[in-house]
């Protein structure tokens, strides 16, 4: 079996569900003949027809809104935003309607929608093409927020997202769309949306990261291992609702944690994770949870974007600080 990229895994999952479930429809800008600007939907319109895989006019608010109407009528709409930076005009429909229809109608109508968007920086794209604002969506009750970070997880989590009875914001880390290849059998088997994935075991420190930042996080773990520091690496994958317990379990072992994300720090998800760790594992903590994140400034144009993104060196430095806590030595 061929090995496929994260991008191809997305395509494979979409094809699988289009094939398996006649209620599934895909739409977005340039997803038809063009196969999406990243080719995530390559070949799907050809295979499933223009009635199931549709280019829309250029209006994200419209894309978000029609998905609600389709979903309450029993379809399984999968809407693509071309980049996460263009999802904001659609926020109102996602927040005010998709996330609330079930609640509002006491279960009479519901919104099993998947809102997909490539996200994150690092591909030298123009302004607005590098957003990581998952925290905004994670704050919204009624949504699920999912970020896959390997081909297998992209496939399994996207299947789960499409089958989920409630709306899912599915953010695809475009920097690693083609970074690695993996064998991903087209088994139709979904992965759970309520469990973290433990990507690496270790007793010394817990690293929590998702999306493209996992690349540097795993690299950092390897580098640290060379100096005898064994990091446990956890990918929450589903950021909301968050499986904090797997993280707490790891803390029981390590007592130390660094959270890594590309998004700006202030009110980012690193804060929520750090806070829950404090709430659930205050007594276990040997050092404050550290955050390695994007800075609280606008993601710069691409000449400087690498300096904005968390890199291996920032992660290893944070780990060493955490391990050396308290700085003087005594506590």
């Amino acid at each position, binding site marked *: 079996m061929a090995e496929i990229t994260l991008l191809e895994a997305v395509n494979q999952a979409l094809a699988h569900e289009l094939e398996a479930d*006649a209620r599934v*429809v895909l739409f977005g800008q340039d997803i038809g003949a063009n196969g999406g600007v990243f080719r995530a939907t390559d070949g799907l319109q050809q295979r499933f027809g223009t*009635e*199931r895989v549709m280019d*829309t*006019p250029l*209006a994200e*608010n*419209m894309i978000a*809104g*029609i*998905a*609600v*109407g*389709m*979903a*309450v*009528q*029993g*379809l399984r*709409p999968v809407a693509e935003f071309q980049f996460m930076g263009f999802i904001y005009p659609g926020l*109102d*429909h996602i927040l*005010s*309607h998709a996330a609330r*229809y*079930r*609640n*509002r*109608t*006491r*279960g*009479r*109508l*519901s919104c099993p929608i998947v809102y997909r968007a490539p996200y994150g920086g690092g591909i030298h794209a123009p302004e607005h093409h590098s957003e990581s604002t998952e925290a905004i969506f994670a704050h919204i*009750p*009624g949504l699920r927020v999912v970020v896959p970070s390997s081909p297998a997880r992209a496939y399994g989590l996207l299947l789960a997202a499409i089958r989920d*009875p*409630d709306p899912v914001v599915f953010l695809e880390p475009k920097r690693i769309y083609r970074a690695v290849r993996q064998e991903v059998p087209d088994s139709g088997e979904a992965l759970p949306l*309520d469990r973290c994935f433990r990507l690496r075991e270790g007793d010394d420190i817990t690293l929590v990261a998702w999306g493209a930042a996992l690349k540097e996080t795993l690299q950092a773990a390897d580098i640290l291992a060379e100096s005898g520091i064994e990091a446990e690496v956890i990918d929450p994958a589903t950021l*909301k*609702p*968050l*499986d*904090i*317990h797997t993280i707490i379990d790891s803390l029981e072992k390590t007592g130390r944690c660094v959270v890594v994300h590309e998004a700006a720090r202030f009110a980012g998800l690193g804060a929520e994770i750090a806070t829950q760790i404090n709430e659930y594992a205050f007594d276990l903590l040997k050092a404050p949870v550290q955050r390695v994140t994007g800075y609280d400034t606008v993601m710069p144009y691409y000449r400087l974007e690498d300096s904005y993104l968390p890199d291996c060196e920032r992660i290893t430095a944070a780990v060493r600080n955490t391990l050396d806590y308290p700085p003087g030595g005594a506590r």
Partner: protein
Amino acid sequence: MHKPRLHPVASFDIHFLQYLDEQGQATQALPDSATPDLLQALYRQMNLARLVDKRAVQLQRTGRLGTYPSSLGQEAVGVGVGSAMQADDVYCPYYRETGTLLERGVEIEEILAIWGGDERGQDYQHAAEDLPLCVPIATQLLHAAGVAFALQYKHRQLDEPTRVAVTCAGDGATSKGDFYEALNLAGVWKLPVVFIINNNQWAISVARSAQTASATIAQKAIAAGIQGLQVDGNDIIAVRTAVSDAIQRARGGEGPALIEAVTYRLCDHTTADDASRYCPPEALEQAWAREPLLRLGVYLREQGLWDDGAESDMQREQAEIMEGALRAYESRPPAAVTAMFDHLYASLPEALREQYQEVRELGRRVERESG
């Protein structure tokens, strides 16, 4: 100034439809659909809508209901639209919709519950596929486009019957991108959806003239390349006929339409509003002369289809219906505090279990404290 020679490339006309004028006189032959039975039924339904509105406003004044948006003077739109639809068409309301909801079979008790701060009102027992009331302006228009897509899709791909989505919004709503995006999509995808604008001349305090420079709302259809028509929104025969024709065309695959129903808001925007701050009394007075019940009543009486006896029977019957619904509304036991988590997701995620427990404890405390 130099005057270049221009070459015409496209032309458009916007039309207006009316059957009954302000005096209740027919301005053209009524459509065959306007049978005596139907006209009487429409008159009754408009009257019921007006009654529910009136009682709801009273209830709000005495603290038994929350903010309420009356449809006073706009009953021909709600009832006309509702009566033009087939039962299995899907209605996508905004919030000023008591007449439409009644026509669609939503219970008065449910309408009261919604405005009484209880989500259970949105769980319509009939009209179970209709959308709930929608507060964020104009958003329902896009939902309607999505519903229309789904209906068309299920017809073509899954062999279901041909059904149509119908939706309504106010004149203010036509300024919001959603309105135009919905029309545009409906046009280019030829969706089976009918958009109705209740042009009641006000968006809270903002007059129609401050909302847009377009001469009519109907002409906004031209931007989307779809049908646009203006109707006398105080003439229920015009409303019903126009909507019905548009639904029929949509059902036949001929695409969407925009219908502007010209009305006047004879009440405050909602019970939270005081229209005397901005609405000139003369305008209001003039508008009262054009209101929809009056003219249909005159017409029915002149045709020998209505009299004082029928009127008082109707008033009595409807008062009973209303008071029955009110009792049902007021005797409904309150929802449990945990209801706030019951339908957030299809099933409660593990991450929310602790909060759920906390709320349950809180509910117990509140119960203990209050009795």
